[in-house]
């Protein structure tokens, strides 16, 4: 892990820039759709599940195409989608629902997100893989 070489420094910069964009979008969604302390955190649920769907789409394109820009995955995957989705906000939402005396909501939110996230990745991959294969080989 040497940040000194140009490739790594560019990658780190791409991750940072992407992370800023993704996090700003997450902040915007959270501000636009606040929820009560004991309520279901629909905003973060939607952010995390849609981010998972999009990483499925992205990874199908990146792994299926012969030539992809080397910064595509660091910028879009690690940066934008990594910054958009958040495990800490998810954990805090669960904790707050428990503290607000809504254990049913806490468990429903906990389970719904953790089940829907890999399912959304799968859906993104499944829908995109055939399209990339068809488009990639003329």
């Amino acid at each position, binding site marked *: 892990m040497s940040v000194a070489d140009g490739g790594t420094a560019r990658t780190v910069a791409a991750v*940072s820039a992407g*992370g800023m964009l*993704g*996090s*700003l979008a997450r*902040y915007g969604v959270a501000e636009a759709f606040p929820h009560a302390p004991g309520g279901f955190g629909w905003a973060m649920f939607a952010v995390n599940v849609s981010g998972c769907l999009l990483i499925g789409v992205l990874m199908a394109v990146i792994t299926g195409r012969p030539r992809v820009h080397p910064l595509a995955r660091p910028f879009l995957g690690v940066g934008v989608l990594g*910054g*958009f989705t958040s495990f*800490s906000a998810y954990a805090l939402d669960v904790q707050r629902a428990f503290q607000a005396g809504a254990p049913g909501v806490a468990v429903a939110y906990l389970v719904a997100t953790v089940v829907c*996230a890999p399912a959304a990745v799968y859906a993104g991959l499944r829908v995109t893989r055939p399209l990339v294969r068809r488009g990639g080989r003329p």
Partner: protein
Amino acid sequence: MTAVLVLLGAAVGAPLRYLADQWARSRFGGGFPWGTLGVNVFGSGLLGLLAALPAGPGLMAFAGTGLCGALTTYSTFGYETLRLLEDGARWHALANVAASVTAALAAAAAGAAAAHFIAVLP
């Protein structure tokens, strides 16, 4: 102003996650997503601490929404879990989900407990 603080925190958090993942891969190999698990647990603990202090709106925007938000990730966690499933490593996938959720929640609770301890310090 709040948005700028979120941006600044994310500018630090996202590359920290990347570097932690690179380090974990070089240290433990790529078989199990230790890097993502580590940052998700650490970030959840730090956010639990900040939320329980409670930190002011500025610090919360920078370190909570920005840094912890970007340091932790759900998309990479979801992708790595699905990759383990696709590779036939079902138990690793299940272990990743169980460990991530329980350890992150435990860390958030520990962070909150630490905040309450800090609050009673003279």
